């Protein structure tokens, strides 16, 4: 009986296990910080209560690796960013794409045209993520196969490398399938992530 539950709820169990591990680590870090603080003279910390270790303001977060263009090479480079843990994968994937649209905080370059908006994102049972963008993604793209490859694979790789449920990514514009963004990369079908767009090997 327990076996059965284990199997059917595999995904959830795993998720909650990850959650509890994250929680444990957080608790560990916090308690170490507190221990360190305790060594200081108690008089300087009059209000501290030893119980209730996790303040409600501490949100659960996960880091995602966003893929942007290298500033010097025609290759993707990652930037790690924290996003809120939402529980639902499609919600987290949506946030990751919105962060990708916002652009990099480091010296990396944005791969998606300014003004692009995420309209919708959903994941089907086969692990295909459908990502629907506003028309700016296509209409404001500067052209050129390199710029196009970087735009397409920054989206595909950001989704596929951060969410193991996502195997392939289909890019849509205004809710419809499109041929290409700028005349090169075939977007009629879902794409797999690529490992060879990260500079020459």
């Amino acid at each position, binding site marked *: 009986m327990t076996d059965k539950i284990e199997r059917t709820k595999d995904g959830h169990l795993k998720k909650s296990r990850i959650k509890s591990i994250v929680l444990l680590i957080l608790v560990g870090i916090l308690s170490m910080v507190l221990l360190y603080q305790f060594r200081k003279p108690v008089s300087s910390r009059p209000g501290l209560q030893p119980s209730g270790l996790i303040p409600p303001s501490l949100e659960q977060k996960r880091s995602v690796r966003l893929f942007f263009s290298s500033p010097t090479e025609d290759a993707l480079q990652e930037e790690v960013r924290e996003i809120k843990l939402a529980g639902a994968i499609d919600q987290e994937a949506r946030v990751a794409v919105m962060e990708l649209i916002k652009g990099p905080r480091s010296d990396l*370059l944005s791969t998606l045209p300014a003004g692009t908006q995420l309209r919708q994102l959903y994941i089907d049972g086969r692990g295909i993520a459908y990502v629907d963008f506003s028309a700016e993604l296509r209409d404001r793209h500067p052209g*050129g*196969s390199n710029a196009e490859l970087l735009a397409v694979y920054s989206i595909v790789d950001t989704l596929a490398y951060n969410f193991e449920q996502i195997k392939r990514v289909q890019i849509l514009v205004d809710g419809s399938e499109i041929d290409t963004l700028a005349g090169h990369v075939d977007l009629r079908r879902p794409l797999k992530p690529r490992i060879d767009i990260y500079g020459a090997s």
Partner: protein
Amino acid sequence: MRGPDFKKTLIFLFVLLLASQSSASETLQVLMGEKKLGIPLLSIAGCQYLPLDQVNKVTGGRCQNLSGNRIQVLIGSIPFILKDGSARVIWGKEGKTFSFPPLFLNSGWAIPFDLFSFFLQRKFGDRVWWDKEGRCVRVGQVDYSIRHLRHGSYTDHTRVVLELVRPLVYTWREEKDRVCLRLERGFLPPTIKEIPVRDGMVTGIKIRQGPDFGELELFGLSPNREVKIFALKSPDRVVVDLYKRGGEADKKELHSPASEEKGEVPAAAPQGSKVRLVIDPGHGGKDSGAVGPSGLKEKDVVLDIGLRLRDLVEKTLGMEVIMTRTDDTFIPLRDRATIANTAKGDFFVSIHANASLHGRAEGFETFFLSHEASDSEARESAIRENEVIDLEGLNRRSAENLKIILWDMAQNEYINQSSRLAEIIQNELDKIQKVENRGIKTAPFYVLMGAAMPAVLVEVAFINNPEGERSLSAEAYRQSLCEALFQAISEFKGYFEKEMGMLDGQDRADQGRALEKVKN
């Protein structure tokens, strides 16, 4: 995490991702003389992989692990260096990029199908045949003494040439409407197929393999004919010339056969079966493509290069050139492959100018189709769009399966040839360019997807950096790019014509017949 660490992690993740999809389902039969070996095919991410240890049993390769996730495979005396996750294989000072990287899996190393095919050719040279009908690979021992069959229809005569591996004794007999040529100890490779000629002189050519001879039958001959059969050297070949009696034939008799044959480049494409090049200048009309900082448009630059290239190729190489556009009109991508396929092009070159995000990139690169084209979905639609295969009489399910197998095989062959063409183009451009050679790459480009022929997309330069734009606006520079492309096409044409005979080139259009045999 940067550099190799980062990459390693990515590859690891990628492999993890793939591991769930990989499965050992099919087996590839390899026939080595009498010996038969089954190699399990692993389907990983839509690409067919083979376990390296099994491949070594065929090629006699010996492995040695190297540092940095690399392995050395010694085939003959050549050490090939494979790197886990890198599609580039290196030996000595040479290297070649394959469609997918070799992978180090739990079970050991696995190599992609095209690398296997490459290893076979390195090891066995000409002695490798893809037997479509038997769905197997034949290598080594079998000694095919006949290499290639070709024919050409000229205004006044038809010539059939049988290229041999070595001189063979031949005899022939002439009947009312046919000529039979028999070659003692002549063994026909499976790549030689029956050919329909239908040029008014000959209806077709049949072949027959006897126990210790090979036979060629030219049937449906016009009664009003004169037959000349003679042997020539380097390469060894037997030539059958059929002249129309009277008229032109009398004049032709003044020429000695040898001098006439001398004028012919080996395997030159005669009139009527010219090699056809499809030139596809990118973008056009409402689609400007990339635009330079001072407004130079990709569509105009690549049209100019394309037209110059057409003139040069037509004038100098005697090839037939098909253009997807000759003026500033918008041609949808889907129509470009259709134009190429309808014209029965032999190979396809799409010309583009690149743009980078940071506007400083320089250099040139050539793309060919990645293996994603043989993804099930992409494959199905490619088959639908091309309908290369006639499948009358087969039930739907087996028809679908056979379509897929044949499409895969054709694609594998196209991918090999495309990668070769891409390499030649890069080499030629490298000779005239001062900017960076960015190498050959694969990408799922729409325009390459539907073409039922070797196809590449060349990015001749970056238009969106000021220097590149300035160069591209100069006529002399565009002419030099065009000449480099011309050199590459000239070289590939030679390779292509040779390959047509060695592998399955010319029966591409005849896959229906191959199926006919599978059916029976």
